[in-house]
């Protein structure tokens, strides 16, 4: 097995046993990056020099016995909306084209403490707004399975990098599906944890009440290990929740006997691609074969999730993004007269069309006279959606469905019709509105050879249940494929 084919945990074991040095692992990843980047463009910034320096340091710490964790020495990539001290952090936006943070995000710090080597920063839709990674100001990322297709978004760079072997795992962020949908399109595994599990400190905010950082990896085990590493209670994030059940790798159990799995009928209606439906239902069948109790049920309110999500996320974004004004950091227009024009020109030049669209939408729904009709109503809808899930989780351990209605669309197709693009988030956004954990696991391919993802949703703080279901599915599915 070549190094680049190894999973993160396998590589970690080889590094600890001395079979592979950290430098060899980093060099291998950098070689893959050099080979694949011209086609894929998963990274905004590759920190070759920093990664090589860090490799030597980490190697020494492992040899001294200071680093013993399963991910020590394993090279990783970080989405470009997570602040990294002294390393360019653009958020995929021209307005932060030159922004070098003065501090490192808590999730990244947790990785570094575990001995991760950061290879660079991955491409993303500008400010995580988009489902294709095409709204980045620094070029389009392509799907490693077929470069005529998008990798999904907004964590498209992270997912493509993992799929292409340009890193061993990556961090993404998920506000409305930004980890799960591109994981599905790129055939990798990703988790969006319960809101409050991973600190948001240093994550450049899009929709603060919905944003969560999470792992993107080659398989369920890697995903659980990375989540275990980045999850922490952080006093710097008021929405962080102290939890004592963060030993997610303990849930890697190949058994779902008696587990109750619900399939929402509402997720299999109009708009769902036939091949995706088939693959997901097959996956449900596999879990049933392994002893799970699988039932269909009506979740309700599914059609209200997208409007509620776009109102809330855009409202928060319109305020979160107001700090990008050319005064303190980032882009400032070259020519302007007076303060007002400086703001206007810097923001006009700095933000792309999708970001502007959402800022305008968000400003509108918060404006006097419309606040009750849109923003408050969306908050009420959010509460009702949470109630619908609460009801479902009274009956089921895990909810199973597709991660996206289709496989990865072709480049250039989605942005022409933003409304249609928004509708593609139908299976993912309600999870963020309800603050739930959910993950995507590959469950097959369509006839064109593009990956299909299975989404498993758990109740708040029940990551272990979805990890167990995902692991059992993955193990069984892999054994069947190999036969």
């Amino acid at each position: 097995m070549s190094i680049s084919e190894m999973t993160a945990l396998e590589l970690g074991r080889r590094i600890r046993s001395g079979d592979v040095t950290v430098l060899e692992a980093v060099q291998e990843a950098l070689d893959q990056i050099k080979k694949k980047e011209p086609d894929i463009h998963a990274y905004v910034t590759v920190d070759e020099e920093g990664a090589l320096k860090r490799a030597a340091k980490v190697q020494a710490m492992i040899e001294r016995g200071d680093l013993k964790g399963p991910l020590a020495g394993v090279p990783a990539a970080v989405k470009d909306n997570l602040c990294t001290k002294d390393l360019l952090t653009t958020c995929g936006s021209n307005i932060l084209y030159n922004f070098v943070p003065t501090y490192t995000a808590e999730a990244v710090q947790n990785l570094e403490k575990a001995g991760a080597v950061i290879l660079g920063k991955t491409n993303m839709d500008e400010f995580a707004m988009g489902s294709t990674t095409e709204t980045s100001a620094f070029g389009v990322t392509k799907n490693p399975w077929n470069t005529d297709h998008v990798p999904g978004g907004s964590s498209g760079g992270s997912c493509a990098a993992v799929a292409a072997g340009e890193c061993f795992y990556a961090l993404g962020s998920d506000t409305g599906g930004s980890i799960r949908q591109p994981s599905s399109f790129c055939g990798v595994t990703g988790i969006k944890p319960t809101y409050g599990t991973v600190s948001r400190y240093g994550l450049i905010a899009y929709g603060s009440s919905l944003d969560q950082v999470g792992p993107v990896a080659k398989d369920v085990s890697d995903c659980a290990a990375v989540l275990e590493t980045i999850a922490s209670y952080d006093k710097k994030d008021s929405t962080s929740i102290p939890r004592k059940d963060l030993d997610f790798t303990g849930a890697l159990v190949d058994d779902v006997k008696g587990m109750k799995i619900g399939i929402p009928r509402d997720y299999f209606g109009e708009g769902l691609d036939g091949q995706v439906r088939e693959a997901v239902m097959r996956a449900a069948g596999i879990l049933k074969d392994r002893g799970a109790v699988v039932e269909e049920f009506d979740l309700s309110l599914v059609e209200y999730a997208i409007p509620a999500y776009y109102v809330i996320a855009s409202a928060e974004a319109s305020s979160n993004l107001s700090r990008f004004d050319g005064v303190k950091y980032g882009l400032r227009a070259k020519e302007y007269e007076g303060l007002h024009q400086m703001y206007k020109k810097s923001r006009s030049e700095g933000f792309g069309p999708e970001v502007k669209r959402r800022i305008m939408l968000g400003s509108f729904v918060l404006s006097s006279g419309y606040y009750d009709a849109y923003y408050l109503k969306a908050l009420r809808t959010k509460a009702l959606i949470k109630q619908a899930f609460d009801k479902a989780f009274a009956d089921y351990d895990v909810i199973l469905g597709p991660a996206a209605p289709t496989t990865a669309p072709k480049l250039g197709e989605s942005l022409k019709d933003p409304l249609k693009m928004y509708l593609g988030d139908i299976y993912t956004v309600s999870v963020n509105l309800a603050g739930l954990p959910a993950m995507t696991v590959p469950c097959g391919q369509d006839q064109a050879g593009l990956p299909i993802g299975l989404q498993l949703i758990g109740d708040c703080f029940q990551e272990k249940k979805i990890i167990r279901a995902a692991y059992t599915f993955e193990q069984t599915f892999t054994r069947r494929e190999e036969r």
Partner: protein
Amino acid sequence: MSRQYETVIGLEVHVELATKTKIFCGCSTEFGGEPNTHTCPVCTGMPGSLPVLNRQVVEYALAVGLAANCQINQYCKFDRKNYFYPDNPQNYQISQLYLPICHDGWVEIDTASGKKKIGIHEIHMEEDAGKLIHDEWEDCSLVDYNRSGVPLIEIVSEPDMRNADEVMAYLEKLRLMIQYLGASDCKLQEGSMRADVNLSVREAGTSRLGTRTEMKNLNSFKAIARAIEGERARQIELLEDGKKVIQETRRWDDNKESSYAMRSKEDAQDYRYFPDPDLLPVVISDQWIQEIKSRQPEMQPEKMARYQKEFQIPEYDAGILTSTIHMARLFEKTTALCGKPKEVSNWLMVETMRLLKEHEQTPEDLSFSPENLARLIALVDEGAINRTVAKTVFEQIFAQDVDPEKYVEEKGLGMVSDQGALRKAVEDVIAANPQSVEDYRKGKEKAMGYLVGQTMRAMKGKADPGMVNKIVKELLTK
């Protein structure tokens, strides 16, 4: 003027809280410091940074709210007020709109016509902005975020005041109350207390409120009084001319004693308030409220009454002694040390007030220790120094907090009560002033006073005046 008008005034008072650290980060709130040295990613609005509420801010807001007889919102929230300005690094201010921490309270003030309750509409917590420095020379503007994130409470009154005197009494009441609670030093000049005045006029006897204006940039009690008079006159003149008052925000120019419109209601900004998703709702338990209540200190009216009763201090004096917490503390500590409340009161009421006036200072500036004043009082009491010398020593205590015993010893100011030395001095004075001796013997009593004065002068004020008197009389009648 044919018609009679009534003025209706409501106040919005901002008070900077006395916390050591900022409202949403651990940076120091200390005044001064090189620009942007008391800052971090949070208070400079760095991408990805998040606010964490300082518990002490809630405690101070609660203490003020309870002292002002307010209802407490035991489930309160922070909202974002969105507007663009460079002194505000996030381009939104974290404040409270929908669920402020305190509401519906009142404070009682003394007016010309007796006691009056002024309603408190609400008290909310918020963050202060940074400071813009416009460099005319370089033609640029610079921002200092040291003040960004300093905690404030805004106290919004009901429109219950009718003239400048009531406004002054209300402000004075708030200042005293908040100072006593230790929640702020409330210095108008330094901006730790700021007031915006909402004012309208209406024909006397009517109950409908007139159109109001909001006056900003009021930096002293005097400016507030002048602004109220100016705005009242301006509005009445408009109405008398058959014109309308426009609802607008005006800026007071105290040098010109006039105001100009900043913005009208029509072009008022839409702040697009919404609950800040980065902060959790603040849940205030009954127990927490009880804790704050049990910690509330003795307030000024109670203290003043106690001074009169416990120490037999006259009402007027007790009022002055309790007019700042600094003075009251000094009084109580010194009294505890020397057990002579009247003496202490005297020093504070007369000499201290005189010196403060002379140095253009306020009681908040007092820096001498109660120990040194107590020692000074003891020295006089023991007869170690006389009153004239004591005043000189007190000036040194006031200025540099000197130890009076050491000072007296070093400067040789101890009272001379050595019979021989005094007799010699008096003999010298009598010998040098035969005319006065003559006058005295002719019945001019005043001449004796002159001779005593001359002796005291010759002794550089250190002589025991009682003994000098005795000796002069003895030698003259010999």
